[in-house]
């Protein structure tokens, strides 16, 4: 198990009213859910909320079980969404979690749940990731929430507020019978902070105390003749109730002064950024107190909006600025429509001055905000533009000191990763033959093949759709079609979306399954292939990838060790030659995620050495004298442990390759040098601990033969290093 919560942190989930908890956003969310009395939790791990699944998994044995909370390792977001159905048919509440992309995957089911309505509360904890370093295509959950009639909570950047919003959200879900989505941004998910907590609540219906049955209810059937009834309930009663409760329960917060002439509306973490900039302008302090001319409305709930609350805030002000992040600008559209309907003539600013799309980082908001303040408060002695300009000038000053920008540090396969050899092998093949194949990439660690040094994920079109994304290209081009998919993604959706589609339609392709025994990209999560649930419990049956493909009628299914370039390439060569008969050919590349393997193997090895058992430890090296510094090895490999250092020959114009001590001895460097016929610089050293007597004799022979270095001037310390 790769989950990361220490037992002391998990113990904090048992905190009582008034206790404090110190932890990240996931722990805070889970604690709030426990206080809400949930009966079930599920989800599919994804950044930035993969840690919610981690926390739930780590808390399963000691906490969740005690409260009888059902924890499901959902096979994908649609399955997770379907779990919410429990709250449609029973007086129970529960939550599921996924990253923002999961909204699309789970949408079909969520739309049904939302139209029918829920009983005691149903929550989706969405990893909202709109930033420049996002691992998803950019999108806002708000648009989905508006379209599907879901309550959307977007807490300000404060873990205590997040804690409250989860609990309030669950209650509003119950009281308005609507599904609620709580957005958790990376800045909240990965924020470590102290939070005051409440008591946990045991659900009336739980796995230790089951309901006799769930009642049938024909009125929940989501098609005619019920459709319009449900639709009318949703838009005439349920959502308006939610909008009313948002105000009654004071979920949106006011800062500053009621009679102020100048207003600012923020949502989510745009609040924090705006407040910080106002404090730099001297118009607020760092405790939320504001200049008497200003009032701020922070929307912790961005859907539904309460028309009266918004109108009342805007109408008596001279100037109002909405700081809305991203597209579509649904808050602005609603507010401008509302102003038009009610004849409010306040000067309103939104995306006309605030950047239209992209994360609203402080330096992107600073000047627009200053401009607004300058227009709204012309009486200010100091120009806001100049005040903020002075702070931001440090940035241009810094940039001017760099003749070349600092290069990006692009993520890459970990040291010893079993996915590296797959792409190294294909890259070498491309180098040798000059044939460019089409690589329909998919979502997982292997997606990093798109980056240097490989450039071997030509498309990346959404989870599970990698091979399917290449059907047209396969049919319309003479290229060999190759798609790599991981075991996690295969079970998530690719078996259906890509494999079934390809087999059914006779797509001509090689489908490589990077089977590393984990859903690794999210930080190592269990999947059917692991044979375990996230709780650590065993899977009921042997869910074999090979047998599944065979069951789908694929004749060519091979399993190979990716570290064996020759064996891998023999199969690939055979598969490549086979293009006359269009069909899917499957190559299962089997080797465990190296991170996981090392976590397991290292302690085992230490123990064995201590116990006096014979242990071999491999690590690779580069002969400094033999390497000439052409770095071709790095361009086929890119291992973090394969790096550069100054060489021993001062006449060489390039640094030489070197392998640092983090090498795990996977042997790919040697395989690459052999397959691409590079150089004789690489070698492997096998250290033998607790050698047997025969090996000890061999060691002596070796020493005698090799001899000792003559008494020569010692090499310099730099060379010895």
């Amino acid at each position: 198990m790769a989950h990361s919560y220490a037992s002391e942190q998990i113990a904090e989930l048992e905190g009582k009213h008034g206790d404090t908890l110190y932890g990240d956003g996931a722990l805070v969310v889970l604690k709030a859910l426990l206080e809400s009395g949930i009966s079930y939790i599920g989800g599919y791990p994804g950044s930035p909320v993969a840690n919610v699944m981690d926390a739930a998994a780590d808390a399963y044995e000691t906490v969740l079980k005690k409260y009888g909370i059902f924890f499901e390792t959902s096979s994908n977001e649609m399955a997770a969404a379907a779990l919410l159905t429990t709250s449609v048919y029973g007086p129970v509440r529960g939550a599921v979690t996924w990253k923002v992309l999961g909204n699309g995957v789970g949408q079909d089911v969520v739309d049904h749940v939302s139209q029918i309505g829920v009983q005691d509360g149903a929550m989706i904890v969405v990893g909202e990731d709109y930033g420049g370093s996002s691992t998803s295509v950019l999108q806002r959950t708000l648009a989905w929430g508006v379209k599907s009639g879901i309550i959307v909570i977007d807490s300000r950047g404060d873990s205590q507020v997040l804690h409250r919003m989860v609990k309030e959200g669950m209650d509003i879900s119950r009281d308005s019978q609507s599904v609620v989505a709580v957005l958790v941004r990376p800045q909240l998910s990965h924020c470590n902070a102290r939070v005051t907590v409440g008591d946990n609540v045991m659900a009336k219906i739980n796995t230790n105390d089951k309901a006799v049955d769930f009642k049938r209810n024909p009125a929940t059937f989501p098609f005619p003749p019920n459709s319009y009834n449900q639709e009318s309930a949703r838009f005439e009663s349920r959502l308006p109730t939610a909008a009313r409760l948002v105000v009654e329960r004071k979920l949106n917060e006011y800062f500053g002064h009621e009679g102020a002439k100048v207003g600012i509306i923020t949502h989510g973490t745009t609040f924090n950024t705006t407040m910080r900039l106002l404090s730099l302008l001297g118009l607020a302090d760092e405790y939320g107190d504001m200049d008497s001319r200003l009032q701020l409305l922070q929307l912790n709930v961005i859907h539904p909006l309460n028309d009266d609350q918004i109108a009342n805030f805007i109408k008596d002000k001279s100037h109002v600025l909405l700081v809305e992040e991203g597209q579509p600008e649904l808050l602005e559209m609603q507010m401008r429509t509302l102003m038009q309907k009610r004849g409010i003539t306040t000067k309103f600013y939104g995306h006309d001055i605030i950047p239209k799309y992209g994360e609203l980082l402080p330096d992107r908001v600073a000047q627009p905000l200053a401009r607004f303040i300058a227009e709204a408060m012309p009486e200010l002695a100091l120009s806001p533009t100049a005040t903020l300009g002075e702070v931001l000038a440090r940035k241009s000053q810094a940039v001017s000191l760099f003749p070349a920008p600092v290069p990006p540090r692009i993520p890459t396969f970990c040291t010893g990763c079993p996915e590296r050899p797959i792409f190294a092998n294909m890259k070498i093949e491309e180098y040798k033959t000059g044939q460019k194949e089409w690589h329909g990439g998919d979502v997982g660690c292997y997606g990093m093949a798109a980056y240097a040094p490989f450039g071997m994920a030509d498309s990346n079109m959404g989870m599970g759709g990698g091979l399917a994304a290449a059907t047209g290209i396969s049919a319309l081009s003479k290229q060999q079609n190759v798609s790599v998919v991981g075991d996690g993604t295969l079970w998530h959706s690719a078996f259906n979306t890509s494999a079934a589609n390809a087999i059914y339609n006779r797509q001509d392709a090689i489908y490589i399954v990077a089977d590393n025994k984990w859903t690794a990209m999210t930080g190592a999560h269990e999947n059917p292939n692991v044979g375990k649930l996230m709780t650590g419990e065993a899977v009921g049956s042997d869910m074999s990838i090979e047998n599944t493909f065979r069951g789908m009628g694929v004749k060519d299914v091979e399993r190979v060790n990716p570290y064996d370039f020759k064996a891998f390439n023999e199969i690939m060569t055979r598969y490549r030659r086979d293009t006359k008969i269009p069909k899917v050919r499957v190559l299962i590349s089997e080797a465990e995620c190296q991170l996981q393997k090392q976590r397991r193997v290292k302690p085992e090895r230490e123990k064995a050495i201590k116990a006096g058992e014979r242990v071999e430890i491999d690590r690779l090296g580069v002969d400094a004298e033999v390497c000439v510094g052409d770095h071709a090895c790095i361009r086929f490999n890119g291992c973090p442990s394969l790096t550069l250092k100054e060489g021993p020959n001062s006449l060489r114009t390039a640094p030489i390759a070197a392998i640092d001590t983090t090498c795990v001895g996977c042997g790919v460097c040697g395989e690459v040098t052999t397959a691409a016929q590079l150089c004789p610089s690489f070698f492997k050293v096998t250290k033998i601990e607790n050698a047997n007597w025969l090996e000890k004799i061999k060691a002596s022979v070796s020493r005698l033969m090799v001899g000792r270095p003559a008494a020569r001037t010692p090499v310099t310390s730099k060379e010895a290093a």
Partner: protein
Amino acid sequence: MNTATTTVSTGTISADRPRAKRILIGTVGGQGGGVLSDWLVHGLLNAGWRATSIGLLGLSQRAGTVTYYCEAIPGQGKTPITSVFATPGDVDLLIGQELLELGRLVFGGFASSTCSIIGNSTRYLTTMEKMPAEGGIYDSSIIARAVAELAPGRHNVVDAQRLVLEAGLPALTSNALLLGAAIASPAFDLPREPFHEAIRESEVNVKASIAAFDIGYNRVKDGTLPRMMVEGQAPVDGAELARQRQGRLSENQRKDYDRLLSHAAVTYGPRMHLILAEALYRLMDYQDTQYAEDFLERVAKMAKQPGADANLVEAYAQHLSNWMTYEDGARVAQLKTRPERFERIKQEFGVTGDQRFVVTDYLVPDMEQILGGLPKPIANLAEKIGRMFKSDFDAMKFPIQMNTNGFWGYATMRGISMLRGVRRSSRRYGHEQILLARWEAAIVTNLKKSPQLGALAADAGRIVKGYGRVRTDALNDFWIFLDEGLPRIERLVQAGGSMDTLGSKALALLAKEAASAPMMRAFLDAEEQRIKPA
């Protein structure tokens, strides 16, 4: 509808409330940055502060950039409103756990006008820096200068690994040293105990980490922590280099080495002395004294060419030495069976005393390389016979994993290294002589046009390196540069271009990676579009 407002805060702003400290920590994923930021936050909490930290992880486990942003405010009371992002020009303390990551924060302009900067001068190279053969590594001195400029007198960028190793502590404790320096820096200046406590709570290498923390802390306090330990290229001392290199030669070669080098020192300048000190050692070690004399003769002949300046002769000598010590089977076997090699391996791989270890060399000789090592007539005959029996004889290759410190492996490699005795009559040797002559002719031809063109032709020797196909590709680039690149550059210079810029750019493109001739052509095409020949 009820629209009662819940005014969270209506007080008026007050200037004397403390302002939160902002700390930004730049790290490389998987290098202990998370532990460092945890220690910082827990230490501040222990010190009675309120603190939050946000980790922007990206794909953290995969050696990407990971940034931690922390805000902390002393004392208890009303909850402050933190920012979830660092604002440029507004951060009080920058910590760089690795130099390039520190540079990224500095480049981002986060340092406030009173900011302290604590950083590690260790470099952890990025993939993009490692890929090109030459010129890929980011210039550390840029970062050093920017740090000194933006936080004058308030920075310590130190080789934390070296400092902890010197103190007998494990390299991993370097993060604790940085934290100690940060806590003692003007940005904080707090007592050490709460942070000791945080390290103890973390249970991460407690004793050593506390010791490392104290080194950083004490040395900032007493002002002995160096401001900047980013090293530029250290100047090489020619006499020292010669002494070292001479010492590696066998007893009877040392005299020859001294004689040849001192003679050459009279003829050429001190810069040339550096080159020759290395070159003569390499050539004598590679073959024999006569071989080094052959080299000197070639250099002397080139130096006598009318118009040949020091630049040309130095470049020529440097690259000629590398070329003449081309890595054939005998050379590789010689280097791979040296007692020093096994000593170095034992040192680097932590092999203790008489512990058993197996060295496996990955070798991939092809037919051309094998035949090349044999005397020409024998090689040609073998080739003829081979081709009769095998249609793909020329394309044959022989990947071997050789146990070089085992009996058979060692004996085989020693045997191969003895081919050195017939090297001068080998097929490869003859071939290389032809290539060298062609290069020299190109230098002379270009030199007649201008000294700069000649020097460029000489410097082009740097492109030729590698084994097998990489070398073949590199040689191909090399001829394209000499035959096509230089004439095009010459025309561009006539049309008003700068020889220095054009020449160094074209060469740099080729030196980055073998088979880059198309890149050079594209560059020259673009230049030709820009500078229309008159």
